[in-house]
């Protein structure tokens, strides 16, 4: 191992000699101090200083830098090691954790540097899917702003120095020492912390997670009298009723839940049944956008709705069976639907709903016989489940009482995100020794004495459990790039063992690996999963008289929902440009958060986003500012008029207004974004839903960078009938074989030049003939239809399965080295994403109600037109068609006239208006992030989706070597790979047995803007909704 000689690193915690075991201090001093036997440089005399300086200068010049290089011999491969091919990528299984729950990953690595994370199909929490935030973890690894070596009060410090200080505090049983962690899901770390507590009985371990699931846990305890963990099987559910449920985009197992939900929604001529989704929610969620029926309900009303359902389902004992603002007909219909699908329905609530709602839904699920079928209850997955809010409260109380002398914060950022009323930052000042282990120097770091750099999970060994409890090993893919430690290593060092991370993890699992531990371990590393570790199911019974004890809180005043940001989450991803610039689902905001409210409320307050004239030209209107006041705190932030919000409810997101993040994340000005901090509103009593909020218009305005505007379809005359989204109800789909318009024309479908010909029954012969000949004025080149020759790549995107989770957007960004451009450039409309999620609003009933529209999402990327309008207009042939049907972009040839983009009806081309990749050139560590298979584009060239042509070519080489064709499913595009629902299908459409050909042959297949005869290779499968007939107007 490398770092045995690394100064300050305490090496990789190898024991260097007997002295270290007996009395570590002197040995460490010797290991650390370049100038042993001196306490400080002050004791060095002048001559020696000059001497040392001279030598240092000479050496540093020789070394080419000031960092101490690991003393290793680097020998190039003369003969490649077995299984290694220079330049080829390798994939390792690992896992990322959020909130204590892991998602299994496959990390792709080139020459020892991980560049891309993908879902691990073998991991139950991933099933091959992934989400945008986890995808961006690789950008965290290479973030140039990461904390690189330990500092003490901002000055250079060393690990041994720190350990010495802590160990001194731990003398005598550890009383007065507290450890604060986020929710620990890692069995190894939890085991070590338990051991730590045993060794130092006086020490305390607290867990705090800003995006906590306390009410889920408390709800389970209310309902069952004990803590159980719930795992849902959405694929088996015929009816899903969500209460502010956002399991699509966050929480344990969200990627797997997306897959399950999508399975229930998959519909075709062969499978004409699908699940029906009802959403009762305050703020639009992705589940709500997908739902067949979406009802706007204020957060405090959710319990009443659940109670009304419970009463109707015979649970009795509840209060009145009606809810203000919700039609009784709706409740009747939902209840009837649930009744009709006993054992095959799910009622689920989001983490921010009250424990009462969670408890009641458990009771209803039990009543409907869903428990054990669609809703599986298990033992808790977290090794030590706690109430996060209670824990942080207890900790701060102890701090206030002076019972905490030393506080080690292993991750998290409590100074920024702890509930306001515990005054964590204030209490921290009273603690003598404080240390913060984190990836960044953030608000908490600078409030602590010691700022300790943490290893990224791709740099350190670890483990974690998925949403069903299945454990997996977190394998590092790269040596720690800086002088960092993981929490596991740090706690182990506190236990005076200082073992390497691998040893810690391995020794934890060793007794659990069965008869042949080495083989089992190797298997676990290869698959990323330790089999048989899923949490044990339990069958708890609902406590009697549950309903009578549930009191709905009175809905008073404006309610404010404080949720983690869909992109930067609780602020941990603030410094990641990919996520800052990722358009938030449904709102498409970037770089900022805002106060979201419905149009009615905005009108009442007289706020909005008026169009502003810049000179004589209208520009993106800056949003009006509103001041939100609650709990004696007030924040002034821009308003975002969010259609579909519940009345008198505002939604704000956490994770912004950072005062200390990196260059990207720290809040700056209106031009560069950074948002507003809403943490001050959170209290231990109300962390997610703050009642009685005053919202008032404030003077001034603030420009928000929105990647899309309010796109209304079916609203004004001019935007109707554009044939952008095809959507029918399930009933219509079943009865009408042409529900999605005219039938498609075989595999080679899409816009057809000969409208009205080759239809229906005759389509076979006539259509065949036509396509063979490639005849007609508007016919595409015949070579596309020579099935004997080339691969013909095609893609379908199933709008029925797409949840709009954005995973594809970030996957594409990571795969294709797509730069971020910054808020100002986004405001100018220059974001670079190759794939985007278009959002449209449509009317719900007869007329459009801006407060309550339907939301439809549609991923759009370059559709690779066979008759591409971009190609004939390029003056230098920089965009040309391949024989395989790909509309190729030749970056080297592009002079940047942007004519192709003007002529692209899908507007999927992206232009490098400025040198957006300059940071990649300037900051060496960012070079590591770039995918070596894809060109990094400079300024002045056009770019766009290539169908991940480098992946195609990779497979082509493989296939040619083996003298075979590329098999179906062998080429997987980055977006397809990331998609948790499998909405994207890609492949060679020549072979009718290939998945994409089959997909193109379904009668839901349609080409976007078919009327233009561009003949897209990427087609969409129309959306089928399954509304309840009794609720149909």
């Amino acid at each position: 191992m490398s770092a045995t000689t690394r100064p300050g690193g305490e090496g990789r915690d190898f024991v260097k000699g007997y002295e270290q075991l007996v009395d570590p201090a002197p040995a460490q001093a010797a290991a650390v101090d370049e100038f042993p036997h001196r306490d400080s440089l002050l004791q060095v005399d002048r001559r020696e200083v000059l001497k040392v300086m001279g030598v240092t200068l000479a050496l540093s010049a020789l070394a080419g830098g000031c960092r101490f290089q690991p003393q290793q011999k680097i020998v190039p491969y003369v003969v490649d090691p077995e299984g290694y091919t220079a330049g080829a990528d390798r994939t390792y299984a690992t896992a990322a954790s959020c909130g204590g729950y892991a998602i299994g990953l496959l990390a792709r690595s080139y020459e020892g540097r991980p560049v891309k994370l993908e879902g691990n199909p073998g991991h139950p929490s991933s099933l091959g899917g992934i989400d945008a935030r986890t995808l961006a973890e690789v950008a965290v690894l290479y973030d140039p702003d990461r904390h690189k070596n330990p500092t003490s009060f901002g000055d250079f410090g060393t690990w041994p120095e720190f350990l010495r200080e802590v160990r001194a505090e731990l003398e005598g049983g550890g009383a007065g020492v507290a450890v604060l962690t986020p929710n620990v899901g890692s069995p190894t770390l939890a085991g070590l912390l338990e051991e730590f507590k045993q060794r130092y009985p006086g020490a305390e371990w607290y867990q705090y997670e800003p995006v906590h699931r306390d009410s889920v846990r408390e709800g389970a305890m209310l309902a069952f009298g004990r803590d159980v963990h719930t795992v849902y099987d959405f694929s088996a559910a015929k009816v899903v009723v969500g209460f502010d449920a956002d399991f699509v985009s966050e929480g344990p197992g969200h990627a797997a839940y997306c897959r399950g939900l999508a399975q229930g929604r998959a519909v075709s001529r062969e499978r004409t049944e699908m699940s029906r989704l009802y959403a009762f929610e305050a703020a639009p969620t992705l589940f709500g956008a997908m739902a067949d029926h979406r009802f706007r309900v204020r957060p405090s009303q959710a319990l009443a709705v659940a109670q009304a359902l419970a009463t109707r389902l015979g649970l009795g004992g509840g209060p009145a069976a009606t809810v203000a603002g919700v039609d009784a007909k709706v409740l009747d219909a939902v209840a009837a639907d649930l009744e009709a699908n006993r054992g095959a329905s799910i009622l689920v609530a989001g983490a921010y709903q009250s424990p009462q709602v969670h408890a009641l839904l458990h009771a209803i699920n039990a009543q409907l016989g869903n428990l054990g079928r669609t809703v599986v209850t298990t033992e808790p997955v977290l090794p030590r489940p706690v109430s996060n809010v209670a824990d942080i409260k207890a900790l701060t109380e102890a701090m206030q009482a002076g019972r905490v002398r030393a506080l080690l914060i292993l991750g998290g950022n409590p100074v920024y995100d702890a509930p306001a009323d515990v005054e964590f930052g204030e209490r921290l000042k009273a603690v003598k020794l404080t240390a913060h282990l984190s990836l960044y120097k953030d608000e908490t770091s600078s409030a602590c004495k010691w700022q300790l750099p943490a290893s990224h999970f791709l740099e350190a060994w670890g483990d974690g459990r998925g949403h069903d409890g299945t454990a997996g090993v977190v394998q590092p893919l790269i040596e720690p790039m800086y002088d960092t430690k993981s929490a596991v290593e740090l706690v182990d060092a506190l236990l005076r063992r200082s073992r390497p991370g691998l040893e810690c993890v391995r020794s934890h699992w060793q007794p659990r690996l069965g008869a042949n531990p080495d083989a089992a371990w190797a298997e676990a590393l290869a698959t990323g999963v330790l089999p048989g570790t899923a949490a044990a199911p339990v069958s708890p019974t609902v406590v009697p008289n549950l309903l009578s004890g549930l009191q709905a809180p009175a809905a008073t005043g404006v309610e404010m929902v404080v949720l983690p940001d869909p992109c930067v989450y609780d602020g941990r991803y603030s410094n990641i440009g990919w996520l800052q610039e990722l358009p938030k689902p449904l709102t498409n905001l970037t770089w900022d958060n805002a106060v979201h409210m419905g149009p009615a409320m905005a009108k009442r307050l007289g706020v909005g986003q008026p169009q502003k004239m810049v000179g004589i030209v209208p520009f993106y209107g800056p949003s009006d500012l509103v001041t939100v006041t609650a709990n004696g705190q007030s924040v002034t932030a821009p308003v975002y008029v969010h259609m579909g919000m519940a009345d008198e409810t505002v939604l704000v997101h956490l994770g912004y207004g950072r005062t200390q993040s990196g260059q990207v994340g720290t809040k700056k000005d209106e031009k560069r974004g950074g948002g507003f901090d809403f943490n001050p509103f959170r209290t231990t009593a109300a962390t997610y839903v703050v009642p009685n909020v005053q919202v008032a218009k404030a003077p001034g305005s603030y420009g928000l960078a929105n990647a899309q505007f309010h796109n209304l379809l079916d609203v004004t005359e001019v935007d109707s009938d554009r044939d952008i989204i095809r959507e029918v109800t399930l009933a219509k789909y079943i009865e009408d074989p042409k529900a999605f318009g005219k039938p498609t024309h075989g595999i080679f479908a899409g816009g057809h030049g000969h409208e009205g010909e080759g239809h229906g029954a005759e389509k076979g012969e006539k259509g065949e003939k036509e396509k063979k000949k490639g005849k007609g004025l508007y016919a595409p080149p015949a070579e596309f239809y020579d099935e004997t020759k080339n691969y013909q790549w095609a893609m379908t995107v199933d709008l029925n399965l797409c949840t709009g989770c954005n995973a594809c957007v970030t996957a594409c960004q990571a795969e294709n080295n797509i730069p971020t451009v910054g808020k100002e450039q986004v405001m100018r409309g220059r974001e670079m994403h190759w794939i985007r999620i278009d959002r449209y609003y449509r009317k719900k009933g007869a007329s459009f109600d801006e407060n309550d529209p339907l939301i439809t999402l549609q991923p759009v990327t370059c559709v690779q037109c066979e008759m591409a309008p971009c190609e004939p207009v390029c003056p230098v042939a920089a965009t040309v068609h391949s024989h395989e049907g790909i509309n190729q972009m030749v970056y080297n040839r592009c002079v940047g006239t942007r004519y192709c983009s003007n002529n692209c009806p899908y507007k999927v081309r992206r232009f490098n208006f400025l040198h957006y990749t300059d940071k990649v050139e300037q900051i060496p560590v960012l070079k590591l992030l770039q995918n070596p298979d894809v060109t990094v584009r400079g300024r002045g060239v056009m770019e766009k989706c290539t169908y991940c042509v480098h992946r195609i070519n990779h497979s082509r080489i493989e296939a040619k070597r083996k003298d075979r064709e590329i098999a179906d499913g062998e080429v997987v595009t980055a977006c397809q790979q990331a998609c948790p629902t499998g909405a994207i299908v890609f492949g060679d459409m020549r072979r009718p047995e290939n998945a994409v050909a089959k997909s193109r042959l379904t009668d839901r297949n349609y080409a976007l803007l078919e009327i233009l005869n561009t003949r897209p290779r990427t087609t969409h499968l129309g959306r089928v909704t399954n509304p309840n007939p009794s609720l149909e107007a």
Partner: protein
Amino acid sequence: MAAEDTRLKDLLPGEWTNAKIDDELVEIVLDQRRHEEAKVKLPGPLAKLVPAQFQSPWYIMLGIGFVFTNVLLLCITILVLTGIGVWGNNQPVGWGLDIVNFVWWIGIGHAGTLISAVLLLLRQQWRNSINRFAEAMTIFAVMCAGMYPLLHTGRPWVAYWLLPYPNVLAMWPQFRSPLVWDVFAVTTYMTVSILFWFVGLIPDFATLRDRAKGRFAQVAYGALSMGWSGSAKGWHRYQHASIILAGLSTPLVLSVHTIVSYDFAMSIVPGWNVTIFPPYFVAGAVFAGFAMVITLAIPLRKWYRLENFITMKHFDWMAKVMLATGLIVGYGYAMEIFYAWYSQEPAETALLHNRVALADAPYSWSFWALILFNVAIPLFLWSPKVRKNLTALFWISMSISIGMWFERYVIIPISLTRDYLPSSYGYYTPTIVDWGMFAGTIGFFLFLMFLFVRFLPMINIFEMKELLHHKEHEEHHNGHANGKAHAHVNGQAGKEEAH
């Protein structure tokens, strides 16, 4: 015919001899004091700042031109160093003021060619006094226009790839692209215009050479006159050359702007994909060009006392051409609206809405500005009184220049802001560099124009003498043939008068 008499008389009023014409026009170039004669009243603080001898129109205009030429250079430097991002162009608006200004300048150039070539072929004698500076205007306008296609590319250092040249890549330009046609059209246009202009200047260079006092001027003009001796053979060849060049230029008047319009008409962008574009762009170009000629002629005429050469008759006729082309352009706008409505294509009707609606169409003001400046205000030209009022004419011409700019603005960026997918709707706001480049090209144009006024004869000397010759002939005939229409044997004028 009496009407014909008044015409020639009107075109060259006053008593003239060849020597007097020479004196009058050569003096502007050779007697440099002429440029300091006319004085401009500067506003208070400026009057103190600017030295008295520079308070003449020539210095003021050249000064303004010089300042903005530097602004142009500055903007180009910023642009090339930083990238297209310094402009307001974005996604979906790939082309903004860059192409607006390109088309605007190209359009302005058209009047020069029309006057010098088409009117020459049509034997319109009234062109004689305005053709020289109109041609100069053409060349300078094309120079301003030409820099935009080059600079609007993301990587201008490889913009030469648009040219068909032999190279090791064995790559040709992509000939299906209207941008490549543009390159050919504009470079051909530029070449022919310069040739035509220079050939026309040769006899005048000789006159300047003969009358120059200074050695430098004699050598310089002598070299430029290429040994012109005024021999009958020389004149014979000159006549042939100018007719051939006029023949070459005439199709260019139509082709250049037709091809420029193809940049749009060949695309599928709603609002661009309009079949009426070629004729309506050509008409618009002539419209804009004449407006610019009038805008320049009115002050130059005043400052250089050219009332006898550029007469009210000239203005009257130019105004009539403007009125006619303006009506064609107005018809074009009406047709665009009609097509959009008649097609009932969602994207087309949405475009129509986006252009003309007062609500929910952020740029409709620019369409109505266009209608005001380009259609409504030019209607005043129906009135002969207005056509003879130079102040009114000047401002109407200005209005047309602004209106034609708006036309391109409405067509080019505004159509792009909203096309097929509402999700990709966008806005377009030009930046200071956009405006700086526009102001800079205007400055560059003025700078070149006033250098031209000082160092080259802005009115064709020999053609004025020719006109005088015809006039004398005519008076002679009128005196002796009792006012009977008479076919002239000599030169171009005769055939036209026979009609």
